[in-house]
């Protein structure tokens, strides 16, 4: 859904700018406000010292109070080692990168076979690969935790990376399957006919052609992994904090959004935004569309 909308918006901007009618303009404004809007109070709250109803803006700002404070306030706390924000950000990115890598390695062969071969039980395998999206994490999380405690994997990076593969592999396989479906075998066959071995064909022909799809799938895996709360919370058991678990411990309980919580919430968005910016130019829009339409 989101992917399609994105693709649509970009097209309008690129080709039909002059013809953007009042409704189109309203629509674009609406999307921008809906996406950016929620960040504005967050940004203000992160710089507030005292911001209570009915004040439209903080009655006192962070920078007015920080000089006299005995303990770090607001952003000073967020960026101090005590808050563990940087540590958690490091963990989040490290875990997400490793998950993306492993997930790609596992999904590539699977997607290739699913896209090209016909075999008995294929539809069952396709369905089976989607089950992690159907079964709620909470239903399996507890069982996994108990098993992981036994195996000594609870509270370890290995354990967290393993559970992150569960919800990421289905997406990756789905995206890559449609990529392979759109890639004719002819190119590879021609390379083989011209004398290239299987590895060389893979490296020089297949991979370059599917790269945009791999990057799109990798982006998904990264974004999903860096946002998983429940499984990380269960398996990390407070020993390994990631940005989502850190944010949860800040905002659970329904309290006021204080400066630190607002600051952490803003920081949580950063890895995903960086990833989006880095990968955007590699991704062909149709990959997104196909990944979900096909």
């Amino acid at each position, binding site marked *: 859904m989101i992917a399609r909308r994105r693709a649509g918006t970009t097209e309008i901007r690129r080709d039909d700018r002059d013809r953007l009618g009042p409704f189109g303009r309203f629509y674009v404004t609406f999307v921008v406000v809906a996406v950016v809007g929620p960040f504005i109070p967050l940004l203000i709250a992160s710089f507030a010292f005292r911001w209570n109803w009915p004040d439209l803006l903080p009655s006192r700002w962070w920078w007015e109070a920080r000089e006299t404070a005995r303990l770090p306030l607001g952003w000073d706390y967020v960026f101090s080692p005590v808050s563990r924000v940087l540590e958690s950000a490091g963990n989040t990115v490290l875990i997400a990168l490793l998950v993306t890598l492993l997930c790609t390695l596992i999904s590539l062969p699977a997607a290739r076979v699913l896209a090209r071969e016909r075999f008995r039980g294929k539809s069952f395998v396709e369905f089976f690969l989607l089950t992690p999206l159907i079964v709620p994490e909470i239903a399996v999380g507890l069982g996994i935790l108990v098993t992981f405690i*036994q195996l000594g994997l609870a509270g370890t990076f290995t354990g967290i990376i393993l559970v992150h593969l569960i919800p990421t592999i289905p997406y990756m396989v789905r995206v890559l399957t449609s990529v392979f479906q759109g890639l004719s075998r002819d190119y590879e066959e021609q390379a083989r006919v011209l004398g290239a071995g299987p590895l060389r064909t893979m490296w020089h022909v297949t991979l370059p052609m599917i790269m945009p799809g791999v990057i799109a799938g990798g982006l998904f895996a990264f974004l999903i992994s860096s946002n998983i709360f429940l499984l990380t919370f269960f398996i990390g058991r407070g020993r390994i904090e990631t940005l989502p678990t850190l944010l949860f411990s800040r905002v659970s309980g329904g309290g006021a959004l204080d400066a630190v919580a607002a600051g952490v919430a803003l920081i949580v968005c950063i890895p995903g935004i960086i990833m989006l910016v880095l990968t955007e130019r590699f991704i062909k829009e149709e990959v997104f569309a196909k990944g979900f339409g096909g």
Partner: protein
Amino acid sequence: MTTIRSTLTLLLIAIAMIVGHVHAQPQGDPDAEAFRSAFLAGDLSWDAVLERAAAEGEVVWAHWGGSETLNTWIDTVVRPALAEYGVTLRTSRLTNTRDAVDLVLAEAAAGRGVGQGSIDAIWINGENFFTLSSQGLNFGSFADLVPNSQYFHFDTSNPASGPNLFDFGYPTNREEIPWSGDQYMCAIDTARLERSEAPADFAELEAWLRENPGRFTYVRPPQYNGNTFVQTVLYAHNPDGDGYVSFQNAADALGVDEFIRITQPGYEYLQRIEPFLLGGGGSDGMRGSPIYPEDQNGLEALFVNGEIDMACQFGMYNTAVSIETGRFAETAENVIFPAQGMIKNKNFIGVPINAPNPAAAMVLANVLASPENQISKLGTIGYVLGIDADLLTAEQQAEIDAVAPSLVGITYDELGAVTVPDTNASLVDVIEGTWTAFIERRSGSFEDSVRAAFADR
């Protein structure tokens, strides 16, 4: 949320028990077993403990981590103090102490014995300690074996030792060592509610609520801030007139009939004021849906945003510290409420039986109990002393007076005059269960609610 959490907990423990049954390994780590029995028998010198602690190299402390000031204090004071002994502090910041207790239970069910768990120390009290204790999952009676135990009264003949030997009326058996104190306090914002207008007891609260419907609420039990409010109501409405005294008995000793008799007036009061609480719908016969915030953060959000005029929660110096951090308006002040009794207790450092670094856990307990660190904690972040001030030097006592934050609007004498202890820990579940059935779910007669709560415990 709370229901989900407790259901999850039950599931987790059930699964762990099934799995643990299959793989049960009752033997702990022999080395840790040897240390445990030698230390608890008093056969080890403190130097030997320090030596082992340095060899263990780290200590994992699970504590409620929802306060930046506390987290900062721990990292800047406790961490370096432990580093001097060659022990690295690793803290696990909890949103709910129950999570750490659940982990210990799950590990024990999975057959993790002495020295084979993942948590060395837990900031704990009340029913969480009661849970570990009733499952036999405490390390042992260590509290009077660490050097700084000299700053606590443990002599049973001395009434001053009560808060150290009883945690919610349940014997600590020296299996946990006090590290902080807590006091139930009520804050008002004098910009909205004059001191002279503020209710001073429950009768005045009811009258004031009828005049000002919706201007008060309390945290939803079973969260302890809410449960404590209910306890104070029950104390004040005890028909025997002896307030907290009847509630010091264990649930079994008290019996369900007696419990019904002494708590009925209190619960009826809670039912009576419900329509006048925030969102309660007022007196026009329409039953609204009162808003009970989930925890202290939720309650304070209502208070600072002007939805309620008085907020009651734990934290003797909460108002002073909250003004300093910008959370409360500068016009916030404490009041004495209710005059019939404001609950004060201590909270503790407990060590689970399967602590992976037991010697380092003893060193942590000792470091946290040092007068120097206790006074620093009081002065820097406004956490009440866990040690007993009368055992300190005159110099240290003077320092305490100098650094203690303000009580903002009330005096120590006024507060001391109305201070009462918690209920017995075994009553906590019954009080919560009755509140949930009778007040929140309105599921039947008072008597049925109590009997169900007694049966469920």
